[in-house]
């Protein structure tokens, strides 16, 4: 594996694209073919299953390269694979059933464990340790978050972000999607609102920094330009507590409304025309049809969009970092977390903030889990 990547590194960048994609496609094809044959009856297929269970883990480990403990680990892997085969062989649903499940899930589960679950557990552990990791600190780090001015501001502002951004962005996106649905030049109008989505948060922050800019003398920021043109005094928008947080939220809304619009527009197109037709025969007006047919029809999609934007607004880092750097009470949990880490690596505080962030998202997760379960019951 590592020699494959080393060999790949020597190749011109552009040629690496087809090579890595081909290698990946070959792997996926092998998985799919195996899944297809795994649950079939008969001795050859049983042998195939056994061979795959025992041989694949060993080959994968050897493919990673030779290292000191490879034989031991490979042997353990082979034994585990054999165990899996036996479990699968005696399974109630018939041999091969759980194997195909494993084949479908294994790649995703592998990556999630090494890349997300393992770091999360490490972080959760650190949240209860002292800042330098020297000893157990109990709940001190959490107490710090809810007593220090930085922590409290971050917590309050995060609540503002997560309450305002998803609802506003979704509402604007939905309204826009409905307004331009089936109108002339729909694609172009969609493109206009989608464009901010294609700009990175850093780019969007630069754009809005211009927008909110304040100068001595002539204004170059549009907002102050308008204000001065009407005879007002220029305002230092980003220093204007507590409204500056709202001005930062606007940047997120500006980028996410395009996302909401695209996804919701696709869902609106999926609402059966017969229902709308029936409603119009019954004499509903546009708003009633929207309220009682379109919205219920795209309910699941609306929830998905709200959830995605909520999570994006909990995680937002670039906007605060690029626009104010957390000054003037604009800091939020995700930003404060990185800042505490960079400020003399206060890992304890930083991890505590991460854990609080995780707890904040739990209600959203539980709500979505309920929805998923409900859908399952209907089916």
């Amino acid at each position, binding site marked *: 594996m590592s020699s494959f990547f080393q060999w790949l590194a020597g190749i011109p960048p552009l040629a690496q694209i087809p090579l890595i994609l081909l290698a990946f496609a070959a792997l996926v094809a092998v998985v799919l073919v195996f899944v297809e044959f795994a649950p079939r009856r008969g001795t050859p297929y049983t042998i195939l299953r056994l061979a795959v269970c025992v041989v694949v883990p060993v080959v994968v480990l050897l493919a990673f390269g030779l290292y000191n*403990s490879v034989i031991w680990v490979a042997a353990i892997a082979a034994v585990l694979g054999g165990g899996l085969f036996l479990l699968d062989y005696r399974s109630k649903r018939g041999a091969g059933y759980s194997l195909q499940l494993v084949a479908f899930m294994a790649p995703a589960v592998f990556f999630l464990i090494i890349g997300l679950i393992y*770091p999360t557990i490490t972080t959760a552990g650190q949240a209860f340790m002292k800042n330098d990791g020297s000893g157990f600190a109990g709940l001190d780090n959490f107490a710090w978050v809810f007593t220090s001015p930085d922590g409290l501001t971050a917590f309050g502002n995060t609540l503002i972000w997560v309450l305002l951004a998803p609802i506003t962005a979704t509402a604007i996106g939905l309204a826009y999607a409905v307004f331009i649905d089936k109108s002339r030049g729909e694609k172009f109008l969609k493109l206009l609102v989608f464009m901010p989505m294609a700009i990175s948060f850093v780019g969007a922050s630069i754009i809005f920094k211009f927008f909110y800019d304040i100068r001595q003398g002539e204004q170059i920021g549009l907002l102050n330009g308008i204000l001065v043109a009407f005879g007002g005094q220029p305002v230092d928008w980003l220093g204007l507590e507590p409204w500056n947080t709202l001005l930062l939220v606007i940047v997120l809304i500006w980028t996410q409304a395009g996302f909401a619009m695209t996804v919701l527009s696709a869902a609106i197109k999926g609402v059966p025309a017969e229902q709308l037709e029936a409603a119009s025969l019954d004499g509903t007006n546009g708003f009633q049809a929207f309220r009682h047919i379109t919205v219920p029809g795209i309910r699941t999609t609306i929830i998905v969009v709200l959830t995605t934007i909520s999570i994006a607004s909990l995680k937002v880092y670039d906007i605060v970092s690029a626009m104010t750097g957390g000054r003037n009470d604009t800091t939020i949990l*995700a930003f404060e977390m990185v800042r505490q880490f960079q400020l003399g690596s206060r890992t304890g505080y930083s991890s505590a903030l*991460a854990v609080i962030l995780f707890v904040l998202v739990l209600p959203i997760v539980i709500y979505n889990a309920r929805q998923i379960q409900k859908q399952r019951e209907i089916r």
Partner: protein
Amino acid sequence: MTATPTPIAVPVSSGAERQLERGLAKIEHSSGKLKRGTTSRGATIAALVIAVIWTLPTAGLFISSFRPANDIKTTGWWTVFANPGFTLDNYVNALSSGDSLTLGKAFLNSLVITLPAALIPITIASLAAYAFAWIDFKGRNTMFVLVFALQIVPIQMALVPLLRLFSDGLRVGGLYILPGLGVNGLDGSFAKVWIAHTIFALPLAIFMLHNFISEIPAEVIEAARMDGAGHGQVFFRIVLPLSMPAIASFGIFQFLWVWNDLLVATVFTSGQGLPITKALQDL
């Protein structure tokens, strides 16, 4: 979605036929009205206002990019309509800057990072989403909720452990379970950044694709299973084509996220392998 009924010749008199045709035309007319939308004048104006507000900030930046540097610093971009003054200097300067890593090279790097980092996670996620949607197993809901919850793991927290994993591998006690990738210091290698992006994309990708894949009518899948297709064939020949629109639209988002990413790329690439976002930041 809606099946089109096949027209059949009904033996009726020519008068009745004409009447039927007129009725059909009427229906088509009214549904045509429906098709033109429920939009009123107010809605159109509201849509236009939103479109203008959404375009204005970008337009300002776009116009600014063509103005002489001195003008940008002293007057607002809207004054350009009163006293125009345009230049391409900004573009010339930007493209020729950069010491060893030129913008052109950085652009190429972005492409090499982004294409695999968009396609690989989507494929892996659609496999997992299919399993979540159509293969029944114990603890399926719990596991799905767990995957969904992983979305909130802040990337910043995962960077350091991942970096250590890539260079040193995974060890329990003195035993290596996984070795490192062995590509440290290789400027031309993008393996680390591909894997990192794949990992960070997976929770959302699985969640989104599951939403679409689970809405495929169960009859379609059951019919294929009756005809003897295994899960491999059902996935490749039915689920994949049917959910292609969803996969494509998610693919576009994933492409944009990776393309615009700065944090992951700066951590996992180096030297000649840095993408265009980093080159832009350094200008």
